[in-house]
């Protein structure tokens, strides 16, 4: 049992790395998607709505498979880590689009009207009045998305990325101890989620005071 620990720690680091990259890509897609969904230009709204509907309407696993296994057919050759990160990031971005949009829409309409009456431009109103308030409200729901994406990195096990779940699977072959291996991976996942959850709570509390 002892000799497996270093491999699990390495896998946990890879899971963290995947989570961070997926999160950054997801937030970027989410911010872009939300601003398009709230745009005045109808075609932009349609594109973003289609993006959200398609990526939330099909399994993330299939999206990973399309990019990784199907990509080479249309000239996109990516290694498993890159393909997986992109697929998961774009997938969680669709959920984050709705989260961010929801938070922006939840800011009282009177705020926008007042700012516009005071002579601020649409962009100024968004940046100086609406977004600072919306940002506070989106911390907790984005935390839910982040929690889901950390667990979602396990979806890269089927394409052989050596993250926690794949590592557990590999050691079952050599140790014949499935219970212990999966439990060990489970404990590491929970530790990551525990720490991230506390970080989000801390952010949320701070954002509320000010």
């Amino acid at each position, binding site marked *: 049992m002892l000799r497996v620990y270093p491999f699990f720690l390495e896998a946990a680091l890879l899971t963290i790395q995947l989570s961070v990259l997926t999160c950054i890509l997801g937030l970027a897609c989410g911010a872009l998607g939300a601003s398009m969904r709230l745009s005045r230009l109808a075609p932009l709204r349609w594109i973003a709505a289609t993006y959200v509907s398609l990526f939330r309407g099909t399994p993330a696993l299939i999206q990973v498979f399309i990019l990784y296994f199907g990509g080479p057919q249309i000239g996109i050759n990516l290694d498993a880590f890159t393909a997986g990160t992109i697929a998961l990031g774009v997938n969680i971005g669709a959920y984050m689009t709705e989260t961010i949009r929801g938070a922006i829409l939840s800011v009282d309409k009177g705020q926008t009207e007042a700012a516009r009456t005071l002579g601020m431009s649409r962009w100024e109103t968004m940046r100086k009045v609406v977004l600072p308030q919306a940002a506070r409200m989106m911390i907790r729901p984005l935390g839910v998305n982040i929690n889901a994406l950390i*667990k979602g990195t396990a979806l890269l096990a089927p394409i052989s990325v050596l993250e926690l779940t794949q590592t557990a699977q590999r050691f079952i072959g050599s140790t014949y101890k499935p219970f212990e291996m999966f439990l060990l991976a489970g404990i590491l996942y929970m530790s990551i989620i525990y720490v991230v959850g506390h970080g989000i709570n801390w952010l949320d509390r701070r954002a509320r005071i000010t």
Partner: protein
Amino acid sequence: MGLDFSVVPSYFDTLLLGMGWTIAITISAGILSFFGGIVFAVTALYGHWLIRLPVRLFAWLFMGTPLLLQLFLIYFGLIQVGIDLPAFVAGVIGLGLHFAVYNSELIQASILAVDKGQYEGARTLGLSRGQTLRRIVIPQAVHAVIPPMGNNMIALLKDSALVSVIGVMELTLASQQAISRTYRPFEFYLAAAFLYYVINLALEAGLRRLERRIAASR
């Protein structure tokens, strides 16, 4: 190698059969997650601490780890202790319990939100504690969380793709089978995605109707 979708129709029956299994898994696991959610919620709130504690621990474990890991644990891990479940059963139990935990969180919050007067009124009318919960509190609490539980059902449908990894012949694995014969992953995974999307739209429409009926019955 370009794209050639003309191979897809000849595997239509394979995909359709897989789609049937995906629907069967979603419905079975959905039913398990609904009733499991109610049982977990009630035991977590009102059970003896000897039951309450393991239920809470179980919920905590299931919410903190990936579904894929849980499926592996149920399918491969239980063999180690002598329980050899068929893949379909393991898949339904894994998906069902996973979403039961999420449903339970919703129902717990909803039970606590039911007006205290309802409970007191029922007790005053002579109903026992169990009767009050069963006939008065739980029906109201469950009724109130049908819409968010519907969202969990949609998530369950999409996560049912994960049981392909433990060898259940549903839509994802059926498309993989077609791919292994034709070497056309892009076409078949896209076809599978399309079929998932169709089931998803049908499920969403059904849930919207259900919500409207509930809203009307109030």
